[in-house]
C-alpha cells in the first residue's frame, strides 16, 4: 500500500496529522499550565460560546485572548444587567455564559435557566478570595450583610434547586469573577477642598452640580448612604428598606430635586463620563472605569474613598441550563481560564479586582501591582487596559490598597424585597 492511497482513503495528510497532534499536545500542555480539565481539542474546537454581560465585564479583548488560548471561539456580547436578566428569562438559548452582577442573579436564578457550577471542576476554587467564597473579610469576620452579600446568593443545594443554600455547598450559582468597592467620583480640581463623607453629595454647596445613577436599586443606595451620613435618616438595612424607609428616602430626594440639587441622573457609563468631563457635575455616583476614562482625558477626577465606607458589588459567570457535552466542557475550560490571571490583570487596569487576586497580581508588572492592589505610589506612568496613560508616576490609587478598600464595604448592590414599590416611588422622584 502506498502512502498516497492511505492519504486519500482516510482523508488525512501527514501535515494534518502533525497539526492535529500538535494541537492536542498544545491543549494538553495548556491544560496542565492553566489547570483546565483535559478537553479533547477535536470536540471543543468547533464550539462557539456566547458570553453575554455588561460592557465593563464582557470585553472583546478578553474574549479574543481566551479564544486564542483555548482553541475554540468565545463571542463577547454586551448587554447591561437589566437586558441580560430579560435574555436569561425570556430567551435563554441566546446566551451560553451569563456574566451576572449578583443583584441581577438574585432576581433571576429562580427562573431555573442556569445550571449551577460544579465546584469540583473549578481548579482554583481553593485560591479564591474569602471575600467572595466565604463572605468573610480580611480579618476573618463576616462582611457587611446590608444588601446582597455575594456569599448569600453564591451557593445552591443541588443541580436542580432554584434556591440559595445558607452555607457553602458543592454547587455554586455562578463562579465569582470580578468585584469592586464603589464610591463617589469628584472633580477635585473644581471642588478644591477635601471631601471625606457621603453627605457631601447633598451638600447645598454643590447645588446643581451633583448627579445620581438612574438605576433605581443602586441610585437609592447611594442616596441612602448620603442621607444616613448627614444624619437625616437612619436605616435598619439600607440594602433592604422597609416601605416607610423607602417613602422617607424618596420624599427627601424629591425635596432635594425641587431645591435644584441635581444636575442629571445618568443611565449609561458614557453619560457619567461626559457629565464629569464637561464640568456639568463635580460630585456624583460613578463606576471605577468611568473615573479611569475621565482621567485618561487628562482631567482631574478622583474616585474618592469616604469615611462611611464603600458600596460593594461583584459579578460572576453563570452557565446556562442548555449547555451540555463538548459545549459544557468548553464552558468549564473558559471558566478555569478566567481565573488564571490574564483576565484578572486586564480588569485590574480598569480598577476591578479578580476573585483569585494572586494570579491577577502575578500577571501585572510590579509597578501596576503596587498601584492597583497594594496602595503604593506608582513609580512609572500607569496605563489603562487600552494603553492610554491614566495616572502619572508618583500617584497613588484613591482609597488605598485592596485590603483597605474591600475591607471597608458598608453595603452591597442589591434588589430589595420592596423592589416593585421602590421602583414606583423612584419613577415619582424622576418625574417630580
Amino acid at each position, binding site marked *: 500500500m502506498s502512502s498516497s492511497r492511505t492519504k486519500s482513503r482516510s482523508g488525512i495528510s501527514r501535515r494534518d496529522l502533525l497539526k492535529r497532534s500538535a494541537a492536542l499536545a498544545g491543549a494538553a500542555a495548556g491544560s496542565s499550565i492553566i489547570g483546565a480539565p483535559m478537553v479533547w481539542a477535536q470536540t471543543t474546537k468547533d464550539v462557539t460560546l456566547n458570553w453575554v454581560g455588561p460592557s465593563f465585564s464582557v470585553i472583546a479583548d478578553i474574549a479574543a485572548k481566551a479564544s486564542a488560548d483555548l482553541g475554540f471561539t468565545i463571542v463577547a456580547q454586551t448587554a447591561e444587567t437589566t437586558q441580560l436578566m430579560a435574555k436569561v428569562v425570556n430567551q435563554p438559548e441566546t446566551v451560553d455564559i451569563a456574566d451576572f452582577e449578583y443583584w441581577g442573579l438574585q432576581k433571576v436564578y429562580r427562573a431555573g435557566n442556569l445550571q449551577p457550577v460544579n465546584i469540583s471542576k473549578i481548579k482554583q476554587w481553593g485560591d479564591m478570595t474569602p471575600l467572595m467564597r466565604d463572605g468573610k473579610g480580611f480579618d476573618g469576620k463576616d462582611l457587611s450583610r446590608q444588601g446582597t452579600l455575594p456569599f448569600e446568593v453564591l451557593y445552591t443545594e443541588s443541580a436542580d434547586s432554584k434556591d440559595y443554600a445558607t452555607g457553602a455547598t458543592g454547587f455554586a450559582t455562578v463562579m465569582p469573577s470580578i468585584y469592586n468597592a464603589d464610591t463617589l467620583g469628584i472633580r477635585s480640581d473644581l471642588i478644591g477642598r477635601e471631601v471625606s463623607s457621603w453627605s457631601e453629595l447633598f451638600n447645598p454647596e454643590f447645588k446643581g452640580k451633583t448627579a445620581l445613577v438612574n438605576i433605581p436599586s443602586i441610585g437609592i443606595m447611594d442616596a441612602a448612604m448620603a442621607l444616613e451620613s448627614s444624619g437625616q435618616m437612619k436605616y435598619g438595612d439600607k440594602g433592604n428598606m422597609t416601605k416607610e424607609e423607602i417613602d422617607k428616602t424618596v420624599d427627601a430626594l424629591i425635596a432635594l430635586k425641587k431645591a435644584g440639587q441635581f*444636575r*442629571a*441622573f445618568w*443611565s449609561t457609563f458614557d453619560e457619567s463620563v461626559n457629565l464629569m468631563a*464637561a464640568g*456639568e457635575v463635580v460630585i456624583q455616583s460613578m463606576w471605577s472605569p468611568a473615573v479611569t476614562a475621565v482621567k485618561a482625558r487628562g482631567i482631574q477626577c478622583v474616585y474618592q474613598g469616604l469615611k462611611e465606607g464603600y458600596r460593594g458589588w461583584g459579578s460572576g459567570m453563570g452557565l446556562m441550563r442548555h449547555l451540555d457535552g463538548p459545549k459544557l466542557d468548553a464552558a468549564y475550560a473558559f471558566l478555569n481560564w478566567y481565573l488564571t490571571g490574564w483576565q484578572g490583570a486586564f480588569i485590574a487596569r480598569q480598577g476591578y479586582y479578580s476573585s483569585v487576586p494572586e494570579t491577577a497580581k502575578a500577571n501585572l508588572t510590579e509597578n501596576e501591582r503596587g498601584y492597583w492592589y497594594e496602595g503604593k505610589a506608582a513609580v512609572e506612568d500607569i496605563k489603562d487596559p487600552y494603553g492610554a496613560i491614566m495616572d502619572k508616576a508618583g500617584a497613588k490609587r484613591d482609597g488605598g490598597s485592596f485590603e483597605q478598600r474591600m475591607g471597608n464595604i458598608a453595603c452591597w448592590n442589591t434588589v430589595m424585597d420592596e423592589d*416593585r414599590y421602590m421602583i414606583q416611588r423612584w*419613577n415619582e422622584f424622576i418625574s417630580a
Partner: protein
Amino acid sequence: MSDRSSAPGRLLTPYLQVAPLAFLMITMVGIPLLTVVLLSFWEFDGIAVYPAFTFDNYAEVLQSPVTLKLFLATLKYALITLVATVIIGFTCSYFLVFYVRDLRIQIALFLLCTIPFWTSNVIRMVSWIPFLGREGLFNSALIELGIIDHPLDILLYSDFAVVLTYIHLFTLFMIVPIFNSMAKINPNLIEAARDAGASPFQILRDIIIPLSKTGIALGSIFVVTLVMGDFFVVRVMSGGQSASVVSAMKNNIDQLYYPVASAMAVLLVIVVLLMVTAILRVVDIRSELAR
C-alpha cells in the same frame, strides 16, 4: 357594480390588494398589541407570568399619583412641541409656496429643509449637548460677549432642552404635509380673493388656513404620536431629570415588571388614540385628501 358581482375573480381582487398590508398590520401591530393587552391582565411574580385575569396591574398604575403626573408631563411636551412645529411648519411652507416663485428654487429650498435628516436622529439630538452645556459653545459665547456672568444652566438637562430637541427633530414631519396641501391650493383662488378686495390677513384666515388644515392635521398626528412614544430624547436631554410615560415604562421593563409596563402601554395607546380621534374629528382627512 354588476360587473364585480358577476366575476368571482374580480370579487377577490380587492382582498388580494389589501392582503400584503393586512398581513403586515396583523403580524407586526395586531398580534404584539394583543399580547400587550393580554399581559396587562395577567399575574406576575417577577419571573414567570401566569395567565390569570386580574385588574391588579391597572389598579397599581391608576392608583399611583405618578401616572397622572407622567401623562401630564408627556402631554405638556406634546402640546408645546405641537404648537411650535405648527407655527414653524406653517410659516416655512407658506414662504416656500407663496413667496418662492421659481419651482426649481422651491424644490431646492425644500430639500434644504431635509438636510438635517440625512444624519441619524441620535446624532442630531446629541449634537445639542456640547452646544448647550455649561461649558458649551452657546454659554461660552454669551460669557465672552459679556451678556451673562454665569453659564445658564437651564439650556441643558432641562425641559427646555427636551422641547428644543423635539422641535428640531420633528418639524419636518409638519413641513412636508403642510407644504403638500398648500401647494395644491389653486393660485386663481387667491387671485380672485384679492380682486374681490380681501386683505392679506383675510386671505390667510379664510382661504389658506382652511385649505391647509389637512396638512396641519396630518403633521399633528405625526408629531403627537412621536412625542408621546418617546423616551430616549427625554432621558438624554433632560439628563434623566424628567420622565415621560415611556421612560417610566422602561424602568419597569428593565426590572422585568412586564405586566405593569403593559398596563401603562395600554393606557398610553388609549390616550394617543383619543388624541388622534380628536384631530380627525376636527379635520376629515379622508375627504380632504380625496379632494
